């Protein structure tokens, strides 16, 4: 039989891309979904893509969701690959989440508190019954009841506890250096808290959920209480060096979780609650809470706790939380490995031959 080496990689790629484009569009008799619809009606998907793509741009994130056929990790990847081409102008001043325009704010530790409990748009108390009305073309729901926002401020629960010195503070701001940026510098160990929090904020929601969950089941237990979860819009300010004062460059939607954990102290050092922190782009309570649990678990060395569980292993968490890295390395196994496998084949054949020869001698 004559053999011709496999050729035509180039054409195969072109054809594959054409097929993919056709599949993406689907049945042309069905109206095409538009980016505005994705932004408006698949907001949680858009939020997740912005968080894991670490780029706050709802419109581009919606494009990515469309382009990836709703594969959210693929969409986050598209966004990151775009993000990396953008120039970096600087970094913001610390966001003032106490000044957030809150749409939702719940605390599990106080029945009532200044600013009150605000349920907001949540699935928490929905009954998970499929709404068959949505299968048909629904009419828009009646508008939700509205009220004037209360003028009262909504202090963060951590600040309330802080007033009594019952919880650890934020710690001093390290003003002598720029915040770590993992998209510019490789991860190093020991990893500073800002590097860890950045990695978690970019991390995979499922991974953080599983790792946070594991701490609740005794794998690095931390006795957490949700001090507060809040969702809303926060102003972003930067200080351009040529101006020397802060200017507002726009708002971002954020979910913040302050997790209160078991107290630390001694007979001589007054005990205080410790904190885990979660902050995520968009509406992402599950991820913010998982992040806060994992953040606290990774701080074991600050509190002299023995690190025994996966969630406490900083190197393990930080190296495996990134789903773009993870999906790349897992899926690269699809690439040809003929040469490696051939070398294994030859080795195993040689070993079998030598073993059989040895057997016959």
């Amino acid at each position, binding site marked *: 039989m004559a053999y011709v080496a496999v050729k035509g990689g180039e054409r195969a790629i072109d054809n594959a891309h054409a097929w993919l484009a056709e599949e993406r569009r689907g049945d042309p008799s069905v109206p095409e979904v538009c980016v505005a619809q994705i932004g408006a009606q698949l907001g949680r998907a858009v939020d997740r893509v912005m968080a894991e793509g670490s780029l706050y741009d709802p419109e581009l994130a919606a494009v990515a969701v469309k382009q990836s056929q709703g594969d959210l990790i693929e969409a986050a990847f598209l966004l990151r690959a775009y993000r990396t081409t953008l120039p970096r102008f600087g970094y913001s001043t610390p966001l003032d989440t106490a000044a957030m325009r809150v749409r939702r704010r719940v605390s599990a530790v106080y029945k009532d508190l200044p600013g009150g409990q605000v349920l907001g748009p949540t699935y928490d108390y929905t009954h998970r019954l499929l709404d068959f009305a949505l299968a048909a073309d629904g009419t828009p729901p009646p508008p939700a009841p509205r009220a004037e926002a209360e003028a009262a401020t909504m202090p963060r629960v951590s600040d309330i506890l802080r007033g009594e010195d019952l919880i650890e503070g934020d710690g001093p701001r390290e003003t002598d250096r720029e915040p770590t940026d993992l998209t510019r510098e490789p991860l190093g160990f020991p990893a500073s808290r800002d590097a860890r929090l950045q990695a978690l904020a970019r991390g995979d929601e499922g991974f953080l959920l599983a790792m946070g969950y594991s701490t609740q089941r005794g794998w690095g237990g931390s006795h957490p209480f949700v001090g507060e979860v809040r969702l809303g819009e926060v102003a972003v300010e930067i200080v351009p060096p040529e101006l020397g004062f802060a200017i507002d460059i726009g708002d971002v939607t954020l979910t913040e979780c302050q997790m209160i954990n078991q107290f630390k102290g001694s007979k001589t050092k007054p005990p205080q609650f410790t904190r885990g922190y979660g902050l995520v782009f968009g509406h992402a309570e599950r991820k913010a809470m998982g992040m806060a649990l994992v953040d606290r678990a990774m701080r074991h060395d600050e509190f002299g706790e023995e690190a025994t569980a996966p969630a406490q292993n900083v190197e393990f968490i930080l190296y495996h939380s990134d789903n773009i890295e993870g999906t790349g*390395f897992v899926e690269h196994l699809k690439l040809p490995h003929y040469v490696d496998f051939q070398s294994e084949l030859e080795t195993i054949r040689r*070993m079998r031959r030598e073993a059989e020869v040895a057997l016959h001698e």
Partner: protein
Amino acid sequence: MNGYNFAYLDEQTKRMIRRALLKAVAIPGHQVPFGSREMPLPYGWGTGGIQVTASVLGADDTLKVIDQGADDTTNAVSIRRFFARTAGVATTTDTEQATIIQTRHRIPEKKLREDQIIVYQVPQPEPLFKLESSRAETRRMHALAEYGAMHVRLYEDITRFGQVAISYDYPVMVGGRFLMAPSPIPAFDNPKMHMMPALQLFGAGREKRIYAIPPYTEVRSLDFEDHPFRTTRAPHRCALCNADNSYLDEVVTDDRGGRMFVCSDTDHCETRQEAGHAGTGEALVREAPVGSAARGGGMKP
């Protein structure tokens, strides 16, 4: 390409990578952390190699890209296209014509020259990772040149199998100092790294490490005096060009054990065919039973 810098990366990033490369060349075999960027290709597809290539590529370079030794595998095609689009450089499949060769899993059969650079794509730059999973600890082991554990692994192989059972990504000592992963090239290619006239650069994008072997550097595959390093290739001739010393791919031709062995280095094979060498073009039947089979090609380095 519109809207993008030459060879995709911005000049600041390229400068950062070149600084890492200079450091890597100055400390042969040492892994230098670098600010690996997210690329428009997935991690694992060669993002490290692409960043290194982009940083050393000039407008008058001629680029060759191979995967598994072949120029026409899909990933090689995809990366070659990427640079053709973003840098507009000349590309070639001819090893001799190329000034820069980016490779995944092979070193070309043709001896490389001083005026060439070979860029390896590296999935896992840490040669100790199977023995020690913490990179903080492996860094310390490299700093202290504590490589006893790696030899223990070879010792265990010989004890269990009578020989070292590592077929690819076979660890090497560079310049007598640093233990280095040669990337998943077959052990057959390891001897080519030793005293190579060309500059060898290694990029691991996901792991964010760069390392290098300067020209004419000693590269030794780990072994024991009484169990010297040996290479393996399929004990056949290429069915297309009749070569008896090139690394061969095995192609299954039917479901009855038929197979054909052909050069993995497609350029090498085609060059030989053009020069008039011809193989049988025939598939082999199932391997002859043990005893009559040709012994494995135990080439000495």
